[in-house]
């Protein structure tokens, strides 16, 4: 099924906005996506009609709120094809999900001399928690390098995967290069030496069909706000056996079965990892976002993005002085980071904003990757289900205009 792009766009009220008297062209969904009406309506309805704290309440409102919140968990579980709802832990975002694993599984399983294998294209949130853990436990970080055209050097993987590697943490899609990584293959090889694999799905889950059983990963982390849902809610998927064996993360209400003065016992999964009042309405909003994406079909979403990005790549590559990072269209998702002539990314982003176009400038939380590519900062346009080839045209025109204003030759 093909996306009906006009209908999709009509679902996102913010796309009617004018910025500096020009129609908004939103090309920063890799940072955070816009929200469709069904998500906004589900959240408003939750606050207006069935809001109360979840879990312990006996009264009707609390029952209703609990049902909606827990229904969202079922939706997420089915969306990623988890074996059981108990494998879906709600967190604040990807970052918190990764930290949860680092603080619980990591402290229990990583010791002196152990290695954690990352890749050079990771987001800071899939680097820093492991640095903290490695420092604390006397472990070592090793990195799978990237090629000049922004792919993982898979021929180096087996060298790096030795018996010291206890964990592999890898992104499903680079938020700078757009590269879609062969996570299934990485999981297969990592499991062969007994390593646990965490997949950073912050960019992958919003844009690609994801099946955790097919990928075979042990953990998957992602954020609601990048997949049409609200901020403040994210997900850690974990294999049940691993989650069962892990100590809890934060202590407090909801995560306990029984509390005595000097000791407590833990609640069942998934609540063992959800201390305190959760992001109730955000969870419900995420459930609505999953319904929305499933209604369109993730295959259709991915196909639409592939087409739009292929067009954008072609259009941008034709501009003199354009350097696009990352692999060709067939190996990437909706992210296009580039440098243009020698125009500073801040100036480009600013000049594009004056044309109503929202892009991001900077290192996109991937400083090691930029360093590897010999860059400090880039400009990034990221496309999602509501973007069109016409918007790529407008981007290319606005870039040419920026070059004229700054008088920069190609």
């Amino acid at each position: 099924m093909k996306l009906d792009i006009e209908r999709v766009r009509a679902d996102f009220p913010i796309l009617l906005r004018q910025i500096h008297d020009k129609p908004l062209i939103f090309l920063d969904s890799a940072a955070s996506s816009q929200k469709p009406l069904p998500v906004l309506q589900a959240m408003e309805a939750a606050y207006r009609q069935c809001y109360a704290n979840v879990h312990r309440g006996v009264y009707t409102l609390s029952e209703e709120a609990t049902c909606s919140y827990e229904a969202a968990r079922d939706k997420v579980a089915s969306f990623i094809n988890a074996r059981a709802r108990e494998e879906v832990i709600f967190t604040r975002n990807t970052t918190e999900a990764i930290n949860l694993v680092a603080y619980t599984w990591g402290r229990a399983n990583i010791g002196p001399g152990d290695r954690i294998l990352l890749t050079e294209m990771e987001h800071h949130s899939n680097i820093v928690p492991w640095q903290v853990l490695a420092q604390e436990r006397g472990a070592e970080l090793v990195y799978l390098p990237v090629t000049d055209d922004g792919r993982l050097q898979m021929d180096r993987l087996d060298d790096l995967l030795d018996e010291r590697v206890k964990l592999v943490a890898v992104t499903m899609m680079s938020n700078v290069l757009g590269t879609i990584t062969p996570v299934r293959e990485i999981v297969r090889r990592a499991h062969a030496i007994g390593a646990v694999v965490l997949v950073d799905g912050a960019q992958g889950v919003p844009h690609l069909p994801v099946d955790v059983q097919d990928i075979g990963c042990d953990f998957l982390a992602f954020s609601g706000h990048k997949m049409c849902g609200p901020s403040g809610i994210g997900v850690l998927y974990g294999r049940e056996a691993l989650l069962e064996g892990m100590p809890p993360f934060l202590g407090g209400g909801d995560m306990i079965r029984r509390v005595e003065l000097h000791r407590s016992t833990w609640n069942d999964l998934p609540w063992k990892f959800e201390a305190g009042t959760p992001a109730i309405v955000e969870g419900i909003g995420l459930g609505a976002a999953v319904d929305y994406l499933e209604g369109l079909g993730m295959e259709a979403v991915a196909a639409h993005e592939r087409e739009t990005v292929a067009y954008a790549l072609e259009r941008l590559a034709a501009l003199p002085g354009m350097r696009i990072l990352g692999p060709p269209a067939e190996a990437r998702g909706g992210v296009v980071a580039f440098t243009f002539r020698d125009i500073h990314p801040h100036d480009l982003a600013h000049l594009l904003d004056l044309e109503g176009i929202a892009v991001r400038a900077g290192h996109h939380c991937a400083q090691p990757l930029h360093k590897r590519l010999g860059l400090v900062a880039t400009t990034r346009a990221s496309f999602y289900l509501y973007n069109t080839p016409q918007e790529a045209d407008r981007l290319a025109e606005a870039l040419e205009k920026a070059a004229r204003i700054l008088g920069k030759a190609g």
Partner: protein
Amino acid sequence: MAQSPYRERILDHYRNPRHRGRLEGPDLVGEADNPVCGDRVRLELRLDEAEQVVEAAFGGDGCVISMAAASMLAEQVHGLNLEELRGLTEKDMLAMLGVELGRARTQCALMPLRALQAALKALPTR
């Protein structure tokens, strides 16, 4: 509606920077940087006996806003004494540029002032 800061006066300072370069044996040197974009500004000043700026130079890499601001600041500090240099505020720096900037770009505009402040801080108290 916000106006474009990319106006002739700013672009002129960017394309034809005043006082870009280095001084030999400056009395004051300060640097500031922004790790988000890798921009850096270095400001060097020479003072006379009355502790007034007689020469200024700046260097570094950055966007139009930060480099134009550095050029303007290097021009404006001429003749100021230490007390006047210390008295320069963010408001003064933004007024020199004379354009409206959002929260993010204001940081670019203020980088040269941060370099000046770093230089003053490093000054041995006499």
